[in-house]
């Protein structure tokens, strides 16, 4: 029980950090909203996708924007972990008689809560500008499960980077890799139009599977293999990052 209470006490501290940082709120919430509006109103008209009208483009692009929201949030997760490492807060926590894993778990819980809150706000804006879904409750729940899984995976992925980095800049740099992966996926345009080598990469990288699965669920289409492949990637990334992250944490 103390493990849970320690985790939530430490998560509460980081939630206060996020809520008190205007910079975090602007970057994590307003930036993805701006991207959504740009994609729908500025570039959307120029993007031609078979079977997707301009009015429906918001339905197409939303899963990618939700993942972008989470990826942007992960930069701040990495930043806060790195700050706690360099400022000596980890040393203070490590000398307290608390569960060893509570410190990183607290970071993860706070990160996922913040990512999902910002995702819900972006989703609400999407509804305001015309996003509509006829998905059933179970399809919504599955889509939500994948988004939560993605938030958990990206959060844990940020941990080893944040702990290994010697500066804040280095710690948050990895989130740009995820953002780059988003552009080389089916987030904004179908992969079919991409050059062959890029297409093969885009078709098989984890973000495409997550995006396709969420998109198909929300548009009530069959998800094919995307669902389980996405789940396998997310579980694999989470476990691998958790193990590496906790190993590094013991040494810093």
């Amino acid at each position: 029980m103390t493990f849970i209470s320690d985790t939530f006490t430490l998560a509460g501290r980081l939630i206060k950090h996020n809520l008190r940082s205007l910079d975090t709120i602007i970057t994590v919430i307003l930036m993805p909203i701006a991207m959504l509006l740009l994609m729908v109103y500025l570039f959307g008209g120029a993007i031609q996708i078979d079977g997707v009208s301009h009015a429906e483009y918001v339905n197409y692009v939303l899963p990618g924007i939700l993942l972008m929201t989470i990826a942007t949030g992960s930069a701040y997760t990495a930043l806060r972990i790195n700050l706690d490492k360099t400022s000596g807060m980890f040393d203070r926590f490590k000398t307290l008689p608390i569960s060893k894993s509570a410190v990183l778990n607290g970071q993860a819980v706070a990160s996922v809560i913040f990512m999902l809150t910002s995702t819900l706000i972006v989703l609400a804006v999407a509804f305001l500008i015309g996003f509509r879904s006829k998905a059933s409750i179970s399809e919504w729940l599955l889509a939500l499960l994948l988004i939560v899984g993605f938030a958990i995976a990206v959060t844990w992925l940020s941990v080893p980077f944040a702990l290994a980095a010697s500066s804040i800049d280095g710690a948050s740099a990895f989130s740009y890799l995820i953002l780059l992966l988003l552009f080389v996926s089916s987030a904004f345009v179908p992969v079919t139009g991409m050059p062959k080598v890029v297409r093969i990469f885009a078709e098989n990288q984890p973000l495409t599977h997550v995006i396709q699965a969420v998109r198909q669920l929300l548009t009530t289409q069959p998800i094919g293999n995307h669902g389980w492949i996405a789940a396998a990637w997310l579980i694999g990334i989470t476990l691998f990052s958790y193990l590496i992250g906790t190993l590094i944490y013991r040494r810093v």
Partner: protein
Amino acid sequence: MPKIITIDRIQKQFKEQKVLTGVSLDVTRGSIYALLGANGSGKSTLLKIITGLLDADAGAVTVNQLDVKKDLRKIQRLFSFSAQNSTVDDVLTGSENLVLIAKLRHIKQPQQVANDLLAQFKLTAAANKRVADYSGGMRRRLDLAMSLVGDPEILFLDEPTTGLDPASRNDLWQAIRGLKQQGKTIFLTTQYLEEADQLADEIGFLGQGTIIASGTPAEMKHLAGPEKMTLVFTTPTEVNRAVPVLQAFRPQTLDEVTLTVVLTKSVTTSLQILSLLTKNDLQPVSFQVTAPTLDDVFLQLNKEA
């Protein structure tokens, strides 16, 4: 007096660099132990080993007769550690920082404990201010207050007054003395010799990876030799005449009109010297008795090491 911390032949090496080559020391319960050493001498490394943050390559540390490697969890309930540069959360308020630690120590009334400590460290007025707006002295006081949450028996303070102005330093020294009066054992590292002199019951000099000297501040000062008297005369001729008169006191000329002599017994020897000078019609324009400081000891030990 019973020992509460025993450090036995601790060794630590980082890659090719041997930082600690066999440190042994004991700390008496209820005392203040100051570990002195130059920058990079391994003070913080030793402190991290004692508090379980770092594993030693060899040697053993026991706290309250418990082995740090085997019983760290039990030991963690006995001590608190305050690292260099005030490990406080800038985004939270002073009160929130204390409540956070109180909750992590599973104290039943965390806000009450926080309020009491804020009052004890004169931070009540700033309780709800974010720590980012605190002065250096306030941050250090809060840091120390956070270390006291849960009433630990032993406090490890890593360079507690580094970067503080003299007034804030005095405040913190007073707070540390107060903690000793409450029966706490305090182990602090410092590079300020005056700090060790002011606070410590026992001092250990860390140099070349080991304790090169230890003892009370008085014993340490004795290592640097006896007191000296500096005499200033009007002319060089007077100095030349004074040297043979004061031969028994090992006179040394500092410049044309100044010489120093060694005092074996502070007051009586001083009077003896002044009387001898008067008898020989020599009148210094000024004289000053100087006791060796820990700076002298520090410089001498570092030179020898």
